[in-house]
């Protein structure tokens, strides 16, 4: 354990050092100006202290962000909009719903592509083209169109997540469903197994390692999708709304706290996926 802890610790310390140096460098002009305006002494130590203690810094220090996170998480009930957990849950709900929808769509498309030659030729270019459209451009359109037919709240956000999530799943599963060893396929034939049986008992389990690789990519982008989906809705709740209101009022500390929360959310979901992978595939060998 110590062997793994040491490089991680060193890297974390280096990043923190870079962050503090960056914060000092970026906040320096503003800090010096504040001190000059207040006619207070502006020596090196004074400016540095001021740069690390500003209310609206260009780049807040890690300790400011941690304090903001701590105050938000412990100062209010988890159901209060002032608690980041509330916002994280709103975002997670949309991200997980979108991930589930993307998973279903991705597997369905992959099965279609693997089993139907015409779909491979006709569908795959569209699947790839769909990912070349900037999500920031299409997200408001999805929200507007779905809002127009009466769908608001969670669903438009989930659809945006799905739009981002299905792609890695489709690509991974097309490869995964084709990964069965020819002998394994012959074996199914000697049992005169039906196509559906061969799918359930051979192609699908054989594709699982590919699915989990894709899923980890999809989890990360599903959180991004949910946050992007929260921006055009005006932002009542969710980490995206928090980011938006933070940028309206120049609350950089609040923005950074929400960013850290978003990455913690991704890490948590990826850990769950990894756990699932270990339970499902871990015992089946050195996969």
């Amino acid at each position, binding site marked *: 354990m110590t062997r793994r802890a040491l490089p991680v610790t060193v890297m974390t310390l280096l990043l923190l050092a870079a962050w503090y140096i960056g914060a000092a460098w970026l906040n320096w002009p503003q800090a010096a100006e504040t001190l000059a305006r207040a006619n207070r002494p502006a020596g090196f130590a004074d400016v540095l202290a001021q740069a690390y203690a500003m209310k609206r810094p260009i780049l807040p220090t890690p300790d400011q962000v941690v304090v903001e996170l701590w105050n938000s998480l412990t100062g209010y009930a988890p159901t209060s909009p002032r608690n980041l957990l509330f916002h994280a849950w709103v975002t997670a709900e949309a991200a997980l719903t979108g991930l589930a929808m993307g998973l279903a769509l991705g597997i369905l498309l992959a099965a279609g592509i693997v089993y139907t030659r015409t779909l491979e030729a006709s569908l795959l270019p569209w699947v790839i083209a769909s990912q070349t459209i900037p999500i920031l451009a299409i997200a408001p359109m999805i929200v507007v169109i779905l809002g127009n037919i009466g769908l608001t709240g969670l669903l438009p956000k989930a659809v945006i997540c799905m739009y981002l999530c299905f792609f890695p799943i489709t690509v991974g599963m097309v490869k995964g469903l084709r990964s069965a060893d020819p002998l394994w396929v012959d*074996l199914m034939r*000697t049992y005169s197994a039906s196509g559906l049986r061969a799918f359930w*008992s051979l192609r699908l389990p054989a594709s699982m390692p590919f699915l989990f690789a894709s899923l980890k990519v999809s989890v990360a982008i599903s959180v991004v999708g949910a946050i992007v989906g929260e921006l055009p809705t005006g932002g009542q709740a969710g980490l995206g709304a928090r980011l938006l209101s933070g940028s309206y009022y120049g609350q950089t500390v609040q923005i950074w706290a929400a960013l850290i929360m978003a990455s913690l959310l991704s890490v948590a979901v990826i850990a769950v996926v990894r756990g699932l992978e270990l339970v499902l595939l871990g015992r089946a060998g050195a996969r």
Partner: protein
Amino acid sequence: MTFPNPLDFWEASASRQGSDRAVSSAKSSSAKSPVVVEARKLSLVYPTADKPVTALSEVDLTIARGDFVSLIGPSGCGKTTLLRVIADLERPTAGQIAIEGMTPEQARLKRLYGYVFQAPALYPWRTVERNVMLPLEIMGIARAERQARAREQLERVGLSGFERKFPWQLSGGMQQRVSIARALALQPDLLLMDEPFGALDEITRDHLNLHLTQLWRATGKTCVFVTHSIAEAVFLSTRIVVMSPRPGRILDVIDCNSLPRERTLDIRESPEFAAIAHRVREGLKEGHSYDD
């Protein structure tokens, strides 16, 4: 368990290669006809970009019930192709073949044979026991019976206690034994084996050969066994089919009834064994020029 002595059937189908016995007679005979596999003028030609490759050329072969038949020959002689045609994994381009009086496809759909591949081909995400249960699952057999039959077959190949292990936790020889147990779990009358021990070391191979011959004697199944080892073919077989490449054809069919039905490893030292091995070697030499 009682089963007909294959020696009786040797008389019945005395002239095998080039026999004028019609395939139709096998078709009309009852399910327990003495003939399990009958091929007449069987050919298989693969179309390729430059010129067609003849994998099998006018092969005539009769396999009697209870026989242990080895197909032997150098690489490219069509021995695996012939086995795959019997299993309906390949379709012949000319000629006739009947399995228990049926087409290979009908036989496959009725799951009449068990197939053992060159590699164990175990599904890595299934435990040993669930690998053996796979064919039974597909046949729709109830869970309790599936398990009982899997355990019985694993015991038969000497792998009791390994039910819950995953394939990667087993040695190559053990994995191949699991794949034999899986083929036996179907309880087929016909066992098709494609160089099952080809990738194993000689000591393991000897051990598994002994095991296989005892298994064959105990179950009375008809076995078709592809190999490129002369010693293995002579040790296991009641009949040896010598094949030759370009095009794939049968050169010689050798009866091994000078050897006892019960085989032990020391029969390999006997003059009868040497005589058969010599004839196989001569046959292989005839069909294969070593200068190409």
